């Protein structure tokens, strides 16, 4: 039986949603009506424009509450993230797992690539001290981790990874405006493929706007977003390497 869900305002299935947006028209009665019709045009059943304001002579801002009748079958929804919390191994478990299943240290190389200068995210995952009381990959006895910092060109990263015989490469991308990351991330995979080395590395992408789905679409093995800790990455890489070693 389908398990249909809808937004909840104060009553089950009332379908209440809050919206806000700007329209390129002056504020006023006609603007408000345009806002209302726009919301209806997006598929909502009812809409009340509760606030409008002039942002400039030619632009206006709206707050609206709308009602949707569309339902989603929750039974068909699957997590799009790499793994659910309960599958994640702790640092000790991961080390034991690597020791038992691979019998050697694994080598990881990470960087924030392209023109992206945000190191905090990749540091959070890699640095000794880690983030939010979760130790970083450098602290794992069975992992040898190299963090190349930010603004690293894809070529450099790949060469370094090849040199240290990395098992996995970690790519961080924070700036996503105008899809600048798409180009850079794609180029990375293309470079690897051109060198015939895509198969050699487990490729991981991460950043606050990177979803697993998106990363996989671009040819990475996995993608990690907000709230990632070292153990998420370590678990995935370790399991993936074991899988590869068995194949």
């Amino acid at each position, binding site marked *: 039986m389908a398990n249909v869900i809808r937004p*909840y*305002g*104060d*009553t*089950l299935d009332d379908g*209440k949603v*809050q919206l*806000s947006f700007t329209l390129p028209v002056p504020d006023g009665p006609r603007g408000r009506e345009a806002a209302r019709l726009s919301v209806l045009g997006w598929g909502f059943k009812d809409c*009340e*424009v*509760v*606030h409008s*304001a002039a942002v400039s002579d030619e632009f206006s801002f709206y*707050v609206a*509450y709308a009602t949707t009748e569309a339902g989603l079958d929750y039974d068909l929804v699957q997590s799009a993230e790499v793994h659910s919390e309960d599958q994640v191994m702790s640092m000790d478990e991961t080390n034991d797992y690597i020791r038992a299943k691979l019998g050697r240290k694994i080598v990881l190389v990470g960087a924030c690539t392209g023109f992206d200068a945000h190191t905090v995210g990749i540091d959070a995952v890699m640095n000794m001290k880690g983030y939010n009381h979760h130790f970083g990959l450098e602290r794992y006895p069975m992992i040898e981790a190299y963090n190349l910092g930010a603004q690293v060109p894809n070529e450099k990263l790949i060469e370094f990874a090849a040199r240290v015989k990395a098992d996995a490469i970690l790519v961080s991308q924070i700036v996503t405006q105008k899809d600048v990351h798409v180009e850079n991330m794609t180029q990375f995979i293309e470079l690897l493929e051109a060198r015939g080395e895509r198969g050699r590395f487990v490729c991981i992408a991460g950043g606050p706007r990177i979803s697993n789905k998106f990363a996989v679409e671009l040819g990475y093995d996995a993608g990690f977003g907000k709230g990632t800790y070292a153990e998420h990455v370590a678990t995935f890489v370790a399991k993936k390497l074991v899988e590869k070693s068995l194949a």
Partner: protein
Amino acid sequence: MRNKLGLSKERIDRARELAERIALPVLDFVAGHTTVTVERAALRLIGADGSNADGAPVPNLVVDQLKGQLESGALAPYVNALLRSGGGVGELNAKIAGGLKVTDFPLGDRAAVRRKTEELVAEGLKRVGLSRKHREAKLEEWKDRNSKPLLYLIVATGNIYEDVKQAQAAALKGADVIAVIRTTAQSLLDYVPYGATTEGFGGTYATQENFRIMRAALDEVAEREKRYIWLTNYASGLCMPEIAAMGAIERLDMMLNDSMYGILFRDINMYRTFVDQKFSRMINAYAGITINTGEDNYLTTSDAFEKANTVLASQFLNERFAYAAGMPARLMGLGHAMEMEPGIENGFLYELAQAQMAREIFPEAPLKYMPPTKFMSGDIFKGHVMDSMFNFISKATDQGIHLLGMLTEAIHTPFMMDRFLGLESAKYVMNSMAGFSDEIEFREGGIVKTRANKVLEETVVFLEEIAQKGLLDSIAQGLFADVKRPKDGGKGLEGLVKKGPEYWNPVEDELKKALGLAR
């Protein structure tokens, strides 16, 4: 809490003196009267309950049967019928619901009736006492687990079962107090509906069964969170004493209960309200229920900056009437609100002054501070910021009960997410400036001190005027909230009854005794 405003003790004392003088003639009147709902409340406390097939409650049926002879009180006839008809209270209630008239039994052995009544009163009050002890024990057990101020949230879905879900969610996320809003029309009903209800507008009915359902739901969360969750409803409107009685029995912890709200905002007759109010406050006092007074409402119809003195004046009056009903200061959740126009330069400082002033004048009262409502608009983002300033002032001035602002105040009764956002924001702000009140001093001659002293002075002047005119005439002339109410107008006057020479109400007598009241 340090006194920082340098308010004149002499002026404060003068205001209290005036409040006492103003209340006196009203209390004289009250002493000589009862009302239909006072009698029904007394009946409820000795066990009258249930309703007939048309939904008319048993207490109403009894009191209606006693029309014309209510000047002697309703308890004796009810207990007389109990003794005459044989069986327990439950059976009698069922019979009354079935059509039995208590007046069909001639009044028999007066002494036996007296004894039985006193026994029932003792039982009823014992039950209330146990509720009170339970609350006190839990508050002791989970000391320091509640936020300071208490975070107070309303639920208002109009369906008690939906209310339960929302109340539990809010309590889990940090609410200390849940107020269940009643349906829009209830305050004008001269009876209290019976049973669980799933309808209503802007809230569902206050019924004893709804109280019980919500109480159990909140106790469940409390045990899980090890944090007492306070339950609030309204002892207000035409049935305030009965609702107080029901709340006392079902362990409600707070009740909205104001000396003038019903008159001004519900057009309830003023004599009726003052009589009902005293009895309801005695019950609240006995049950250890904190009242929430309604000064905040004044500011929705009159200007918060101009009429700040009317709020303070009403606080003095509410205090006086509460003392007169045997209530200790620590149960007086005197109300006020942050309702100045947000565009006022230094409005934050004026509001700070007002809140700090109330704090210093009523040091023991758990002041109930209400968020901006009137100037909230569809701009939920601005509204959220206004609420943050309110959260700030509340913590900075050590308020007792903090009603959470909702960013959608101007739009709809709160969605679940609105409540969540209100809570999250209050917790962030209050934690982030927790020590503020301890930290700062106000500059001599600055805006805050000057304003507070000015409002106090204006309050004394205002109270002098009321003392001169008399409270009832002052209300009639629109001195509060810019609302005028004629003395003999308004709803419910027909339910007012002058006590006769035979008037007998042992519930009232016992309460007076317990509360140490002379009259």
